[in-house]
């Protein structure tokens, strides 16, 4: 029996230009959904059905996208949880964190709590679904993976290590159906009280040396700043050169 998979999508934001785009992780969630259930995949967005970015998702070969029509200031979770509760899905896929708005990453957790489903975070792949249980691979930093199983139905947040979203094709994107239905109309009151401003640059913390002695302070003040050009070893013996590399590898903890 094919499993019912739903991917949730949002409006992303390009890191350089700040323009709306297909969000990276949501795109991967759609990609994984397509891998698991092909054309059966249901893709859902809570927001504006006129949003052009939805066409970028549709360009991945989606015949239609379900839109829970609501205003930006409304709470997306309310619409989504009502909708999902009615859909009897096996797996709901989302990104880890949205690229626009609050970017709290809380949506999947609140949905999981509301539906009473388990949630697995930072999924790199769903390897197999068998007997009501899915075998998932979780992404850990630096290419490491953890295997786990989880009972259906569940929510998975998709990590940036998952299979990259396929290219979006203009034609199918243009022709896809945007099926809108009205979403919940709960104002996000808490958020209304927040103030938002463009991000202030965060100065990187200087390596503050709390010098205990005058000599330390002197050393800290006169030490060569990090960066600049590196060390070049030319006339040393081969052993010394290799030792220098070895020391660096130990210092950087890539060799243990």
């Amino acid at each position: 029996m094919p499993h019912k998979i739903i991917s949730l999508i949002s409006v992303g934001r390009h890191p350089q230009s700040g323009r709306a785009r297909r969000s990276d992780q949501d795109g991967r969630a759609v990609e994984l959904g397509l891998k698991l259930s092909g054309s059966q995949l249901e893709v859902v967005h809570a927001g504006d059905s006129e949003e052009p970015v939805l066409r970028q998702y549709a360009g991945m070969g989606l015949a239609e996208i379900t839109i829970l029509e609501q205003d930006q200031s409304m709470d997306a979770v309310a619409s989504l949880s009502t909708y999902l509760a009615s859909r009897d899905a096996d797996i709901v896929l989302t990104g880890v964190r949205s690229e626009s708005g609050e970017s709290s990453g809380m949506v999947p957790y609140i949905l999981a709590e509301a539906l009473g489903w388990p949630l697995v975070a930072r999924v790199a792949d769903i390897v197999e679904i068998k007997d009501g249980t899915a075998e998932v691979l979780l992404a850990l930093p630096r290419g490491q993976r953890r295997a786990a199983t989880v009972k259906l139905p569940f929510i998975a947040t998709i990590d940036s290590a998952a299979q990259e979203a396929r290219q979006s094709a203009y034609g199918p994107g243009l022709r896809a159906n945007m099926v809108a239905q009205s979403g919940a109309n709960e104002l996000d009151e808490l958020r209304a009280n927040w103030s938002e401003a463009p991000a202030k640059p965060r100065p990187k913390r200087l390596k503050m040396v709390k010098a205990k002695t005058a000599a330390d302070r002197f050393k800290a003040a006169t030490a060569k700043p990090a960066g600049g050009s590196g060390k070049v070893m030319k006339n040393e013996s081969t052993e010394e050169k290799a030792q220098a590399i070895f020391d660096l590898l130990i210092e950087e903890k890539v060799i243990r």
Partner: protein
Amino acid sequence: MSDIIRRDPRAEWIIRNRLHPLHDQYVSQEEGGEIRGPSGIIRKFPHKVGFIGPNGVKRIDRLKGNAASATGKRSSATQEVQLPLHQISSPEFYVVVVPDLVGGRLTSHDKDILGLAHKLISEHGGQGAVAALCFGEVKEEHFDLAGVDRLIHLNDPAFDGYAPEARVQALAYVDTQLTVKHWLFPDSVHGGADLGSRLAAKLGERPATQAWQVTAEQVVCRGASSSLDISRAMPRIAMLLEECGDAIDETRHEASSIEFADIPLLEGHIVDKGLMDVDPNAIPLAEAEFILSAGNGIHNWDQFHQAAATLGATEGASRVAVDDGFMPRIRQVGATGTWVTARVYIAVGISGAIQHMQGIGQVDKVVAINTDAGCDMVKRAALSVIGDSEEILSELMALVNAHRNQASSESEENSHAA
């Protein structure tokens, strides 16, 4: 020799047991040797007063316990400055920090948050204590120096490995048992963000996420892919970015433990199947932490592959090495290949054409092995060694092998000794 450690099991037991009537007395003996006698007079413990100076002479402590303690440790050797102890005897509330404890130790991120926790307490006023809540195996030895007043260590096997369901239930349980003013989590990929989000969802709180400027009243959070600063009232649960606060470095803390017995746990739906054994060469190039990359200056390819295996590095290549058929296309680093993010990138016999450099823009430390000291890769590298790649690689392999042998014989020794 006063150096010899004489254990006093009874004293140790009393010190461990907070509920023992003599607990306070023993603890303060340990610390500075002053106790208030039943009549209210301050008494000194003559054996505890003072410390052993650097040349072995006993000296009177006029620093009131701020000097190194003479007991319990081989302290004549340690010249560390003994920091003043920060004590909270009966906390009115807690700020609970759930550290990542990567590899069982506090990360610098964890320490920043512990520091921030103290800042929050002092802003709130009153008797608050910072509690660190740790799961599973803990190797950290200096909770006291990191600002941990109370340590909650839950090491029931149910919390081992990947157990987010059990862990969040434990957190929620602790929340019912202590007065927690704030729950603080590192907003990290090491599990902090996940656990924090779970707790927030469970408790129905709207957490502050990616918080970086925090006071007791207000918090500034990054939003919209770090392009937005959202200012809002400081909620009960917060997930914090690195460098959100300053780590504790001028006080010592009790790090006394709070025990919770029999936390009720419901069975979960997620089963951990363990870490995968990932071959360095199976790691996607873009994610690899350590890359050994080959260019046109490699002439002994068997040796190169062997070197990568010995170093435990992921293999990369310049386009020329790929074009010439020595390396597969997926290994190509650069404009038309992969853009890597490695922390250490060793470029062996790669000249540093601009198209190659594009691919290593995000690399932290580049090491160049090249016969040409004037090439662009040398300009980019943190360390360059000029010489023949084959010789240097073979020497490097020898060093690494020696290091590994030593390490393994040591661990063998240890296991024999045990």
